[in-house]
């Protein structure tokens, strides 16, 4: 959306401009640009768009993508990794096999658990990183680390950085869209898509498919006693007339004309957002591809079940595709809510099978649908999909059939825009407890650096000065993961 209206008095600009001589950084010169900070990419981009799939509550790698035969072999036996283990909630229980079998899929022959088998269809397009390490076993901090690169609040989300760096590809939809779990926001709430010290237009806009309206304040309240379509339309033209007069009497203040334009864009957004949300005209086979339920968003969810989870996640994926087609730059899709009751997230301390089963199937149907659909539309080549979660889960049991947090190793996968398919870079150890090569783990910074790299951005150069530090998404770390790039 080209509505980054910088006023002539923009102090940030002049402040940065004054320093431009001594600190040549892209962000300095390009705050002036209407769209994004960079304007000119650092390198040819492989991807233009990003979809970040976030499994709130910490999805178990050893029950989904990271096949560990030893868990089956030693199931029920004492688990001994040969070192002291400090767990988040519990003391280590016995070795726990996955409730699901693993089978080979695709040409690459990657093992996937039954719970995520729908992704088998597209596994040759996916690249797995099984040696991702976290910094904390606390949900809030682990979530922030993945969404912002820091464990404390106060830093812009990855999506905000991308929005800031590249700007918008359309002028009637937000640049960064968030599709949260409708049952509640994950840890930290809106902090996971805040722009913080980046300009406020780079914060995420929440879209709630099925809610009315799907974007807050998109339309007058339905129960408004006085606003009609006609009063709205006529009102906007009167407003434009009076606002224009006011601006004309005060020449030289571009904020005033920008504000007039913002009302025009708002009207455009009403149309385009409504159109983007409307999946009614999608053919049946497409709805099936994403795993949508016949009942729609009102599907029964009193007990956690596959059908509902597929509907919820699948619908978000389908809407994501429609938004991507319409030029949204970055979309964050959430599976799982906050840590409330009853459990509707991936934090399976109590029972892996009960909760991971439906969530994983729902997620993998939707994600597989999205990948296939983008591919058939020729959009997978320049859309990067990134799957992540706050940390992994332990190879040992908690209370018999659950698993505790494992910040020491977990899995990310990437797909599309510049990613080499069917590969695995970075392994976990025999148990899925720590990286196989402990001195060379993958960190969130590396994944973020790779994402920016594929978007044509050098992660070390996309910076903004805040409190004495030229801040960037990757803090002072980050190496591009070469092994997963096409």
């Amino acid at each position, binding site marked *: 959306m080209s*509505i980054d209206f910088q006023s*002539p*008095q923009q*102090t940030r600009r*002049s*402040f940065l401009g004054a320093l431009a001589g001594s600190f040549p950084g892209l962000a300095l010169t390009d705050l002036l640009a209407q769209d994004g900070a960079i304007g000119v990419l650092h390198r040819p981009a492989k991807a233009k768009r990003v979809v970040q799939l976030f499994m709130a509550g910490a999805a178990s790698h050893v029950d989904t993508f990271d096949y560990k035969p030893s868990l089956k072999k030693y199931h029920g036996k004492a688990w001994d990794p040969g070192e002291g283990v*400090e767990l*988040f*909630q519990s*003391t280590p*229980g016995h070795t726990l096999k996955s409730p699901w079998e693993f089978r080979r899929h695709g040409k690459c022959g990657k093992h996937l658990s039954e719970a995520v088998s729908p992704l088998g269809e597209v596994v040759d397009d996916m690249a797995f990183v099984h040696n991702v390490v976290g910094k*904390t*076993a*606390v949900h*809030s*901090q682990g979530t922030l680390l993945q969404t912002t690169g820091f464990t404390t*609040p*106060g830093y812009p989300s990855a999506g905000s950085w991308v929005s800031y760096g590249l700007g918008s590809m359309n002028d009637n939809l*937000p640049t960064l869209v968030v599709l949260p779990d409708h049952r*509640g*926001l994950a*840890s*930290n*709430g809106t*902090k996971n898509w805040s722009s*913080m*010290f980046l*300009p*406020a237009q780079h914060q995420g*806009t929440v879209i709630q498919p099925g809610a009315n309206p799907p*974007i*807050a*304040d*998109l339309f007058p*309240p339905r129960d408004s*006693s*006085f*606003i009609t379509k006609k*009063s709205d339309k*006529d*009102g906007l033209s*009167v*407003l434009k007339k*009076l*606002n224009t007069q*006011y601006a004309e009497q005060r020449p*030289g*203040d571009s*904020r005033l004309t920008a*504000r007039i334009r*913002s009302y025009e*864009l708002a009207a455009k*957004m*009403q149309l385009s957002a409504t159109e983007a949300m409307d999946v009614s005209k999608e053919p049946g086979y497409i709805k099936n591809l994403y795993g949508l339920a016949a009942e729609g968003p009102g599907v029964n969810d009193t007990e956690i079940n596959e059908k509902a989870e597929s509907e919820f996640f699948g619908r978000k994926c389908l809407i994501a595709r429609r938004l991507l087609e319409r030029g949204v730059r970055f979309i964050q899709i959430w599976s799982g809510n*906050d*840590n409330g009751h009853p459990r509707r997230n991936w934090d399976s301390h109590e029972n892996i099978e009960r909760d991971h089963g439906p969530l994983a199937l729902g997620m993998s149907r939707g994600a597989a649908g999205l990948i296939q659909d983008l591919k058939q539309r020729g959009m997978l080549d320049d859309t990067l999909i990134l799957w992540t979660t706050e940390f992994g889960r332990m190879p040992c049991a908690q*209370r*018999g059939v659950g698993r505790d947090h494992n910040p020491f190793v977990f899995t990310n996968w990437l797909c599309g825009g510049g990613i080499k398919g069917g590969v695995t870079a970075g392994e976990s150890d025999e148990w899925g407890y720590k990286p196989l090569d402990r001195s060379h783990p993958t960190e969130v910074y590396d994944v973020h650096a790779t994402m920016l790299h594929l978007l044509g951005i050098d992660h070390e150069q996309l910076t903004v000065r805040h*409190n*004495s530090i030229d801040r960037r998404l990757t803090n002072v770390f980050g190496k591009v993961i070469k092994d997963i790039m096409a």
Partner: protein
Amino acid sequence: MKSAALIFKTQTPVFFLACLAGTICFSFSQAKDAAPPTFAAAQAILEKNCISCHNYGEKKGELVLDRGPIKLDDPDELIKLVSGSDPEMPKKGTHLKASQIAILKKWIDAGTPFPDGLVLTDSHAADRDWWSLHPLAKSKAPDIAAEDEAWCRNDIDRFIIAKLREKKLSPSPEADARTLGRRLYYDLTGLPPTPDQMQKFLQASATHPNSAFEKLVDELLDSQRYGEHWARHWLDVVRYGDTHGYDKDKLRLNAWPYRDYVIRSFNDDKPYARFVEEQIAGDVLWPGNPDGVIATGFIAAGPWDYIAHVEVGEGKVDGRIAKNMDRDDMVTATFNTFMSITIQCARCHDHKFDPVSMEDYYRTQAVFAAVDRANRVYGLDPAIQNQRESLSAKLSTLKSEQIALGKKISQLANPKLGKIETRLKELKAIGQRTVKAPEYGFHSQIAKSPDAEKWVQIDLGTAVSLKAIELIGCHDEYAGIGAGFGFPKRFRIEASNDPDFKTGVQKIADKSESDYPFPGVLPQSFPIAGKEKARYIRVTATRLAERKNDYIFALAELRTLDSTGENLALGKTVTSLGSIQAAPRWRRSNLVDDKFPHPENEAAMKELTSLENERRQILKTVIKPAVQKKRTEFAASIKKTEIQLKALPEGKLVYAAAAAFKPQGQFKATKGTPRPIYFLTRGDIRSVGPEMTPGAPPLWNDSPSEFKLAINHTEGDRRATLARYLTHKKNPLTWRSIVNRTWLYHFGRGIVDSPGDFGRMGAAPSHLDLLDWLTIEFRDKQSLKALHRQIVTSSTWRQASANDSAKAAIDSDNQFYWRSQRHKLTAEELRDAALAVSGLLNMKMGGPGFQDFVLEKNQHSPHYEYQKYDPENPASHRRSIYRFIPRSRTQPFLTTLDCADPSQSVAKRDETTTALQALTLLNNPFMGTMSKHFAKRIEKQTDPITTAFQLAMNRTPSANEKSTLQKYATQHGWANTCRLILNLNEFTYVD
């Protein structure tokens, strides 16, 4: 500044002090004299090229070059790294010259001698030659040309016009009276003037513009609205919120007294030094004064990770990280807020640009080492406070005496007992845990005495022959009991064919003569020797287990095993003499449901039970009746004191810095004993260096880096010393910082436009001379109101905001103040103005914040549902400063309008213009409600449009405006017309 500093070497690991030249340390030359010549030659090279990374704090590549003794695994390697055409080192900056490499080589060949106790410092990091660190010096306004004197109302203007002339610029004419009035109201109170107020001002202004203006300034500064408005600025900076943030964003129901304190302080024009000192150590410096306690809400204002502190705790790495980051937030907030210096950069390495070392940083952490964020009592009657304190003290004495007695008994008993108890403590943490179903077992009714008889029995249906009976204890965390919950101390197991056990009773086990060993949840098996058949099995408790000052009998499972080992009791009928039926946990049928707790760690459970029994055995042999009596007396006195304490009023609560509070899970108070603070290499809590004593960065001459505190100082003394440090007359930053912030809020830009960062990475001041002049005035008067008065009465402030393209060509950003900056209403100003013009604004001051959301799922993980709130609810028609501020879901309407995020310190708000803002101003239900009420207010008036314009914009509409709106109103009604007026550019912009 010299580039090297000395340390006191006290012990190993060294306890060092990066001291400043000319201070109390040994003199620099002394060390230099002692330095071997090869080192002396290498020192400058190291300082300039190496130690910014290879220092003790960062240890890049595990190489430390800033202090001795230096250990090189491979001496040649270092030379290799810096040699050649494309050397690997130094990473940044220029390559070393051959001559420099030769010097290094000489030093290495000599065995890297390094003077004892010397610590090299990165020269820039210790350098105080920077505008914001220069001492404040008295100055006077510049002399200006006579013709410019006419424009000047006070010295601010003299500084401004001098600079304007230097830049070939000239000031703008004064704004008209209406604009000035409107601007003044918004600037000082955050609210629009009412039509009456404006009318009054315009009338007075017509004849005596100057005095009318000055009178209005006084009036507004005296108004309570002033404090409400300026408190909002302050709360932006101190990251104030009403919930914890992070995961399970819990409510802080007692944060608001701090918000009210800030409002009160502004309204009272509290001397700024006192305002600063109170927020760091008011409880220590002004004991007995409620504000002293409330003010420390500043320290607690930021986000707090409930899970990491309460559920994880300091026993685990994640909990210790959280504690470290919690103190980091306190340190950061203190220095960013009061001194505009980014001390937090020195957590992982010496500050790269400003003179703050890692040692300084960790010393400052030590200041906050004993406090946490928690609810704290304030405002009690001093007599009651004293009583409470003396009772609390008595209680803790009694408890420690009780513990001492326990210890004495242990010592008397057996040296082994101490060991057993230590091990038991460890085991309780792991060995207690069980895997259990929601169906706990059978639970008798509660008895007042242990000797009440209780029984439970099973009807096996037919008479059968049994091999053994098994009893399994319960597990319930109630009263911290855990395993073995309710298992009787003494009991009998009997069998009979008579359901009343009057005849033919066979004894299976009689454990009624002495206490039965502690069983935990391990199955207790009682073999049956005979072959006689019986239909009923009964367990009679003859001495009950203690619960919490009462007694019960509970069992998880009763198993009757036949010769094949089959449990014949499964699912059979259970009767008892009394039972608690509280499904699913407690009911009779749970006794025979095959559901009972399994130890998570069986070995630990076994060890636990056997040690517990050993402990009981030892105690039994040593507790003489006299000792037993003493024990009982202690217990009674403790109970009595607790009752007395409970009877006293508790006072009010504020969420503030606290060293004493009620423990919650793993979150426990220090009770005033500071946690040890260690120097952490690279900020990593696993890389622990020497322990640090309290201090602060030495940022002016003779400011000590280490606080001089008595050996037996209290934790409060640490904070009090920091408070005095902040307000020290010579502190170059504190006074400049607040003057600049104040200037920023009046003009829309600061003299230093990075108001939270006065360091080398911050912005340069546009008018340093003016800033320093104002600062000295302010420091000596200590009055913010005087500063406001000085600013708004200047000609500079009173200029019109109209653009001038010729001047804009020279200074498009208006950084030299050749005109006024047209002010766009902030989110809160806009909301308050909409309430005011609609006639709904409720001026109630203070107290708990209004909640403009519906709170759901509060028990576990609160949801803040704004869209479900009805904006017609008058409870929310208060000024925005009184809003309850959740962190995890920020208020969407205000957030869209660039309101400050409560999870970060916001020194200056963003100002954006977006389509989402247009949508929210048009469609948010709040705006709809305001439009309706605004319409009700004007529609009965003879000239509704003029009234509406007077209310919203303090002016009369033009004929053109009037006819346009009249036409629209006729067609769509007044509510729609008012909705439109609230969306005008002119409503959003003050000028």
